[in-house]
């Protein structure tokens, strides 16, 4: 995934997906957290960051925005998603919610301005569910695409 460095005419965000600055050849692990040296982020990285943030935010945990987030984290952590098939279903629901919020804000140009094509998400697909039974971890490999035709594949560690 190419890092965006052109900030002209863009609305940048603070980078908090920790490993964006350390791209791997195939996929980026999208852990959350402020890095030691905060950086600006735009383009598809920003799209990725917004998506991951919304997907991993537990719905009902943000006061005054109780519908924001998804049921993904809760479902994984409390064992509701007991198999890959059901996890697929949960992902579909959660991803749809995240996309709805992003699309709604992108369309609200009065409040947020006109987004550039490479900052508008058009799809998010689940590529694989990675379960390491030895380490008791679950990760989701996701591929997102923006309106500019770019795509990025990354891993969301869930547990």
């Amino acid at each position, binding site marked *: 995934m190419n890092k965006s460095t052109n900030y002209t005419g863009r609305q940048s965000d603070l980078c908090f997906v920790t490993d964006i600055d350390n791209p791997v050849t195939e996929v980026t692990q999208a852990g959350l957290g402020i890095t030691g040296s905060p950086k600006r982020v735009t383009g598809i990285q920003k799209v990725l960051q917004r998506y991951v943030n919304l997907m991993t935010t537990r719905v009902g945990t943000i*006061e*005054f925005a109780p519908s924001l987030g998804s049921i993904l984290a809760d479902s994984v952590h409390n064992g509701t998603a007991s198999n890959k098939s059901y996890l697929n279903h949960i992902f579909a629901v959660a991803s749809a919610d995240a996309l709805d919020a992003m699309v709604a804000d992108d369309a609200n140009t009065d409040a*947020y301005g006109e987004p550039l094509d490479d900052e508008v998400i058009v799809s998010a697909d689940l590529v694989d569910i990675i379960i390491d039974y030895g380490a008791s971890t679950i990760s989701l490999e996701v591929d997102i695409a923006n309106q500019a035709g770019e795509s990025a594949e990354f891993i969301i560690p869930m547990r």
Partner: protein
Amino acid sequence: MSISTVTQDQFTTAETLMLETVRSSYSGIDTRRGTAIRDLVVRPSSTLQAYTAENANAAAGASSLERMRQEGGDIDVDAVNAILSNFNTTYKDGDYASGYVRMVFSSNGTRLLTSGFGVTANLDTALRFEIPESLSITADSSGTLTYEEMAIGGETVYTVPIRVVATGKGTIYNIPTGTYFTPDTGLIDVVDCLAMSSFSGGAAAETIDEVIARLPVAIASRSLTNSVSVKALLSDYYGSSIAAVNLQGMMSETQQRNKVFGIGVGGYVDAYIRSFASPAITIIPKTGTPIAGGYTVTLIQAESAGVYGIRAISDWNGVYSPIDSAASSYTYASTRAIGSSLGIHKIDDTAQAAFTCYQQLTVTVYDALAGAETKEFKLELLTAPGILDMQTYCDSEAVRNTGVDFVLKTPIVARTSMNVTVYLPTGTTDTVSAIRTRIVDVINGNSFVPILGLAAIVQAIGYRVDMGPGKLTLACDITGASGVSRKITGCGDIDIRTVTDTTDYITPDTVVFAADPADIQITQIMV
């Protein structure tokens, strides 16, 4: 106040403002949902902004009585008191009515009534009264209360007066004499239970309008100089029951104490103090000394203070109220004299002493069956509470006006009654008792005014009223200093000016209207 008091709407408003601010100042920052800026800057700032705005709003609301009035809703007593503390006064949140019920039993075994025992008015089961503390009733003197043995219709019954207190606040609990009650279950051999006399003391909590209306008095100077300052002074001393004050001084027609060779001079003030809403009743036991054809009862000066009439006289041990009892057949008359102690005041004749704490009453009770033995009577006196107490206060060195001879008086009371037919819509939850209370409140709100308007009363009733001949009567009875009664009866306004008599101290400046719930007769027709 905490963050939890912030509403969703308040937050949304603050967040919208914050988003606009960030976007207008920093167009290169993305604040969409899911961004770090939204989570780390916009949302916390918006929450804080909403909280601050809520605090400011609450502070503004809590610092203005006018704003509380406009916003309506429940009264925050602490917030109102915080404002009123600036004016050296407090919110009046109402009082509980109390009075005595006479319970009649057919047996005289020991009875224990625990705290919480109560009685409920038969006519309005919402009116409940309870004993303030546990008590025992016994045949001998070992209990808190002792039975009185009576013979009624050939049957022996046992009676006892019990003090009860309303379970709620408000004038609606000032029930009239003779109201029948149903006691709580558990008592056996109960023959009757009824109010010995009208209950008093019940008062509703103030509205914000009433608080605002009385603030001019609250912030007035406290001195014996004008009506407002006298009311403020006495309200501070005697409490909230000072409803109205009117001073009669040098230029007043009813000021007789200042006449020198018929010419009024300064230095004398009669202060008419309304220290009651509904007519207040003081019940005292007095021993009647036999005379030809009856008894004579002499009240000492302290007992006579502020008395303006006698409501009823009955046997002290009588079972039933005077309304229902043969004891009500007593007739009586009272004479007034100047008391033996006038203190620092100049009072020249009986009329000048009338209604002050310097009058002394002697009551003659006419009873054709009177024997040679003394007899214990129950006197129900109509009086302005606290006149003696307040006069003593006004005469104290610290308060006394050194240039004026200042005497407090009970106002001339126009005892008002009403007979009205009201058409109540079927299904209404309103009650005759509540309508009666509203009528009484309107009447009792008229002090030192020339006219008691019928329109205000009809408006308070709130329903269609039959104004036809004989269907509505508004009447009042005014007794001046001479003891002569004047009656005004009609089906319209009552105008005090039609009976003005300055030599008898009756003018719009000295008269107040007062009604007891028992004086309001309502015929209800469901439509």
